[in-house]
């Protein structure tokens, strides 16, 4: 995949800036939940939606829990992430990272 010119250095600058704001070293582990909280992006778990969509939660958390990792929805400029908490914490972190 070709990245546009300057993307890597720009991404590195932002990463350094955010790490500084979170008081993290350049090589320190980055907790995606803390990062999302810092950026004001809410993360909801799949099972927290059981009351609104019980069959859907049953399907994606139990019957076929590999079918869904996470989704980010946008409304205007706002975002909300739903993550499948039937997965391990590490898998969830990996789902949130992109």
């Amino acid at each position, binding site marked *: 995949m070709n990245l546009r010119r300057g993307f890597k250095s*720009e991404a590195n*600058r*932002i990463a350094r*800036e*955010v790490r500084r*704001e979170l008081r993290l070293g350049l090589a320190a582990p980055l907790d995606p939940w803390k990062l999302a909280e*810092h*950026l*004001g*992006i*809410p993360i*909801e778990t*799949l099972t927290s*939606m059981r009351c*609104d*969509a019980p*069959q*859907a*939660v049953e*399907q*994606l958390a139990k*019957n*076929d829990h590999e*079918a*869904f990792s996470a*989704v980010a*929805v946008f*409304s*205007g*400029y*706002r*975002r*909300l992430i*739903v993550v499948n908490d039937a997965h391990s914490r590490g898998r969830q972190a990996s789902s949130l990272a992109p």
Partner: protein
Amino acid sequence: MSSERPSLSGFMKLLRCYISQRLLVSNSEICTIDFELQECNWRRMDKEHFDTESFYAALDSVRIAKKLTWKEVATESEVSASTLTRMAQGKRPDVDGLAALLSWSGLKAEDFLKGRAPQKTKQETLAIISRLLRADRELGKENAAALDQIIRVAYKRLSGRD
């Protein structure tokens, strides 16, 4: 000495009062409007707020007109990229950040002192998502229906957040 900054809502109240005072000295017609506003009393002022989402949308228009990335906006305005991202989520900037962005953009704070337009989820967007999910043969009928439901709930919750 305390380093505490005035809250944005406090600042907006002061600004609102300042505008109100200016109206009073303008002319009698505007004074009438001001009187009506005063009739609504201070409790109503608590409901007045800075419309962060409209302000962010206006900033975005300025950004596009100047052909800049958000990162460049952050650099030029000396406001952190994280602050801009938080604003996209409807969070209010602190007074210094707001002042910097107003100065950079040339926008006026009073233009955003109004009730926020409700953030509506476009039904067409949900319909498109639903159609795409159901068209994906690898996903399966049950998973497509489940994902469709989850995304609808997510949109509903996102729209319900203040």
